[in-house]
């Protein structure tokens, strides 16, 4: 709903009654202009992010060469070693990418089903009393800083959950820093997001659909899985994509729990380095501005930005294209 639809129309603001420019009219225009600038700042932020990433990573400004003018795209995406801080420098983003995707994958395996199941419970089964109890808890869970989740992974998940099960029980070698503990806490972190977004989608399915299904002899189980869930499909998928994008961009928990070993591995019990963790670890040390290591920050950040942006755009497209519209 825009301002004009709500009733205060253009005739008031543009002053068509008289053409006089009065002080108060000038002030009205100045205030509108000021607010417009505030709104434009959000566009400026996006332009700023893209400009900063592109000028350091793709096309250099002035004398400085950008990252991809010194390292080829082919090397960046096919080389399997990532050693920008060593004397023997290799710039293959694959170890960072697999580290990131493995952690996001583990997080998705935990966060998506649990989040969706709790959304179904809250939307279809729970009494208002239970809902009012559980929803604030999920909000608190969503509000806990990520550095706390990192601590939780390191001090609780690895020694008290992973080690007893996988090391003592099944004989794997579980490192102090490992991808699994990071994936688990990131998975927990995205539960509230999946749950609340999916619940909104499920609740917006009209109750007529549910009643029709009951009238045809469905059990509650059939109604949930065969009627409500398909009807809310677009919203659920959109929430999944947003949650995975969040897991890919998650930084502190992953930096603390997964360590900083950029190895190309699929073993979840070993230390890996995600793209975000690399950026943090480099900026914690002393890196000369303009060095190739410094520029590699921007190249990695650009890759990360493009991945999360793509997932956000796809999620919005899913919502628009596949939304079931009910009267």
């Amino acid at each position, binding site marked *: *709903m*825009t*301002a004009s639809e*709500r*009733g*205060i129309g253009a005739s*008031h*603001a543009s002053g068509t009654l008289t053409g006089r420019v009065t002080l108060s009219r000038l002030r009205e225009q100045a*205030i*509108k202009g000021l*607010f*417009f*600038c*505030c*709104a434009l*700042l*959000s*566009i400026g*932020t996006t332009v*700023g*992010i893209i400009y*900063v*990433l592109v000028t350091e990573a793709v096309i250099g400004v002035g004398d400085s060469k950008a990252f991809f003018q010194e390292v080829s795209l082919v090397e960046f995406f096919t080389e399997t070693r990532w050693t920008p801080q060593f004397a023997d420098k290799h710039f293959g983003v694959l170890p960072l990418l697999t580290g990131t995707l493995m952690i996001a994958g583990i997080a998705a395996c935990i966060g998506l089903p*649990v989040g969706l199941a*709790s959304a179904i*419970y*809250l939307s279809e*089964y729970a009494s208002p009393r239970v809902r009012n109890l*559980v929803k604030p*808890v999920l909000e608190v*869970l969503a*509000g*806990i*800083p990520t*550095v*706390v989740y*990192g*601590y939780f992974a*390191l*001090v609780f998940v690895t020694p008290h959950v992973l080690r007893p099960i996988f090391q003592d029980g099944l004989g794997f070698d579980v490192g102090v820093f490992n991808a699994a503990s990071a994936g688990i806490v990131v998975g*927990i972190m995205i539960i509230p997001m999946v749950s609340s977004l999916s619940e909104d989608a499920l609740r917006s399915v009209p109750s007529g659909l549910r009643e029709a299904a009951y009238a045809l002899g469905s*059990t*509650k*189980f*059939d109604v949930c899985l065969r009627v409500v869930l398909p009807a809310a499909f677009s919203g659920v998928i959109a929430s999944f994509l*947003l949650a995975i994008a969040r897991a890919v*961009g998650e*930084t*502190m928990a992953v*930096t*603390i729990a997964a360590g900083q070993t950029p190895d190309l591995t699929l073993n979840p019990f070993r230390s890996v380095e995600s793209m*975000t963790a690399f*950026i*943090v670890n480099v*900026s*914690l040390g002393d890196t000369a501005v*303009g060095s190739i290591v410094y520029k590699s920050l921007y190249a990695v*950040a650009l890759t990360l*930005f493009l991945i999360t942006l793509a997932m*956000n755009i796809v999620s919005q497209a899913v919502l628009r294209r596949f939304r079931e519209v009910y009267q």
Partner: protein
Amino acid sequence: MSQVVVESPQQLAGRHRKGRAFEWACLLATSLGVLVLVVLLVGVCVQAWGWLDGDFVSNYDSRHPREAGILAGIWGSFWLIGMTALFSVPIGVGAAVYLEEYAGQNWLTRLIQVNLANLAGVPSIVYGILGLTVFVRMFGAFPDGKVVLVSLGVATLKVPIPFGRTVLSGALTLTLLILPVVIVAAQEALRAVPGSIRNASVALGASRWQTIRLQVLPAAAPGILTGIILALSRAIGETAPLVMIGALTYVAFTPGGIESPVDVVRDPQGVVDAPFDTFTALPIQIFNWVSRPKAEYQHVAAAGILVLLIVLLILNGTAILIRHKYRKGIRW
């Protein structure tokens, strides 16, 4: 039993069993969140037991775990969040007012809206890179660095150009980070104010800005305030962008040298210096302690986390109180 029923009673019972199992599975998933929260809170409290005391909140960080404290982090976060609020509230509310009250339905408005949704999904570390380049280094345009002096009577403003690794750079970065959240929350609050309020005000001869300032904003204030506080409590926990812009990890001073609320009144120069001082923050200190190998530091980290969670609790509690208090006064 008529012939059209093809389902035997056993099959029906089976379907019901399946349904009950499904319900239990969903209930289990829902309680997992509650369980994790309980384990996390209890775990942190147990680890912090005996470590969170008066000395902890009044000491600086130390190489000896028993003497380590979080004073620098508390004051760093105070200045950081105070300044973030100073920047993000007017800009965020202004942008929301423009989008809800002034903007027409055109491509630019749509672009801003879509852009806001996308900005909210950008990882915080990318904002850190933006802040590092734009505020801390200013694109390297001032390689020598200079200090601009502004006299304010009781004190002198010393603004470094580029801003460097200061509270100011951190606050500006966090402002950009939480602006989309503030704007969207404020938009929702403005949208909830009924159009009849605006019509009545305009009908009585008020200008558009008078309508907004005297009718719409006061009516939307509780909603806007709640959104702002929630956004600020997100900013308090943010670590990654601050690490990027170079918040220090080992600090034995507070911004501007202000160590107690009394100093704020006694030392105007300190207050003016604080925004341009280097700093650390609560989550940065926690991160630093978590990363230290000595096992005792895990207890120090837990105590730090407890302080951070208490601050968050106070903020969120305030948000709820404000919402309650204001809501009583409004009826339509």
